[in-house]
């Protein structure tokens, strides 16, 4: 059964130095507040996993919390580069970053394999591409029925997966809607999981019987953090701040302005500071 705890307790209980950590969210529902708590608690030597590391992983890399990263697309969507990620790869600042790079299809399949308790995923992928030449974890497997050669990648099994969702009930069952990304697979693939939510309600009231629900017994910790996905968004609660993503480019370009931003907005800040971004609760969830 999921324990409903504060964000500080959730991170303190579940995230350890050296862990493999997946903070998922495909543009939508990115767990910013939880990522910032990981920075505040000073976790180090983390191995980060995520399909689309964006500003949150730029921040974790920039403060030196990461020793490595497995990913498939590392940019600021629609804006340009992740400057802290680039500085780590190109100049080893603030420390070298070991990278393992895949395609989206391979990462999605690898999470699914992890959730399914399989050792690897097979896909019709990487044909004619150079990534298999630089990533020894992209291998091939021959279909025992047809003889077709397919790409094979190891399952992803994080020590802990962290996601953000719209709401949980008091037992810790979690409802996710909108662009659902790879969150379900990432939680089910992990040993432990943290879900931060916009609100905690008496009844989940899923919009349809087929809504995406993660049951309490498949989640480790749930924390109530309204606005916790900002500057990404929570469908039905508040929109993505595209202006923040555009503005981040200038802050992250320079090491000093980045460090000053982290001090002011993360280290000297609290999870509650996200609440001002939470917006209004939609009528249907009332």
């Amino acid at each position: 059964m999921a324990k409903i705890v504060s964000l500080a307790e959730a991170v303190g209980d579940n995230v350890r130095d050296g862990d493999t950590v997946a903070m998922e969210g495909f543009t939508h529902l990115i767990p910013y507040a939880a990522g910032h708590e990981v920075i505040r608690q000073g976790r180090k030597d983390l191995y980060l996993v995520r399909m689309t590391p964006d500003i949150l992983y730029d921040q974790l890399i920039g403060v030196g919390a990461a020793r490595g990263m497995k990913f498939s697309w590392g940019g600021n969507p629609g804006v340009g580069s992740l400057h802290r990620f680039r500085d780590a790869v190109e100049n080893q600042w603030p420390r070298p970053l070991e990278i393992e790079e895949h395609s989206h299809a391979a990462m999605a399949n690898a999470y699914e394999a992890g959730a399914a308790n399989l050792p690897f995923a097979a896909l019709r992928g990487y044909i004619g591409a150079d990534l298999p030449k630089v990533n020894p974890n992209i291998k091939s497997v021959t279909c025992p029925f047809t003889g077709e050669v397919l790409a094979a990648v190891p399952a992803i099994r994080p020590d802990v997966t962290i996601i953000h969702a719209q709401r949980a009930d008091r037992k810790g069952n979690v409802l996710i809607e909108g662009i659902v990304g790879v969150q379900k697979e990432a939680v089910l693939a992990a040993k432990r999981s943290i879900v931060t939510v916009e609100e905690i309600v008496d009844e989940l009231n899923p919009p349809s019987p087929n809504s995406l629900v993660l049951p309490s017994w498949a989640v480790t910790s749930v924390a109530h953090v309204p606005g916790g996905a900002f500057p990404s968004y929570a469908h039905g609660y508040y929109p993505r701040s595209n202006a923040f993503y555009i503005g981040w480019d200038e802050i992250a370009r320079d090491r000093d302005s980045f460090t000053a931003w982290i001090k002011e907005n993360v280290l000297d800040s609290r999870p509650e500071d996200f609440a001002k971004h939470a917006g209004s609760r939609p009528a249907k969830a009332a």
Partner: protein
Amino acid sequence: MSDFTPTEMMTIAAARALSNDDVCFVGIGAPSAACNVARLTHAPDITLIYESGTVGTKPDVLPLSIGDGELCDTALFTVSVPEMFRYWLQGGRITTGFLGGAQIDRFANLNTTVVGPYDHPKVRLPGGGGAPEIASNCGRIFITMALSKRGFVEKLPFITSMGHGEGGDHRERLGMKTKGPTRVITDLCILEPDPQTKELTVVSIHPGVTREQIVENCGWAIKFADQVIETPAPTDLELTTLRDINARTKKAHQGKKEAA
């Protein structure tokens, strides 16, 4: 409305490549603009799919990211990312992929990974994302990129997604049954692969552009087809549609500079 920019011509020429029957996997940026102009002009029933899981989406403003709420709000349905890549893309349900890139070579292979050696890159780019499998699993691929010596290079430092590989029948030799890149739309001209060699060849030149300009802006000795036509200039409807959606998009994304 006779004045238009090269970028506007590129986007409109790319939009014209699409038809009502296309089920199109849309990349962010120029491909997204082109696909939505097509939807708002001659191809109202085109199906647009973004890799975040939105199927049959009809955004009113262009998304900044691949997963803006606008895409989900206006979609027929939204699926998980594993389902998107496994059932819909790998399952062969998508007729057309629309890609851009940092660099391209004469056989329409694309690089969005690194400039310089992989282990010690001069420039670390975002990486492949969905592109490696979009390039091999969609029925055909359109590419849109501005023509420049930096982008159109003799040899790629890294092949993120395969176009026609080494040319000729390379795709077939690797077991691929899809067509690969069939058209590259630039701000100066349109290129298509030669039927035999698969080398990209100029087939259409945009109004007011000279052959010399095209040669000067390409990093390899670019070839022209025997029959080269002039790309029809944008119509009033095409230009108005593109400018309207760009204006709506700019207004929607600027907002308050909250990070600053």
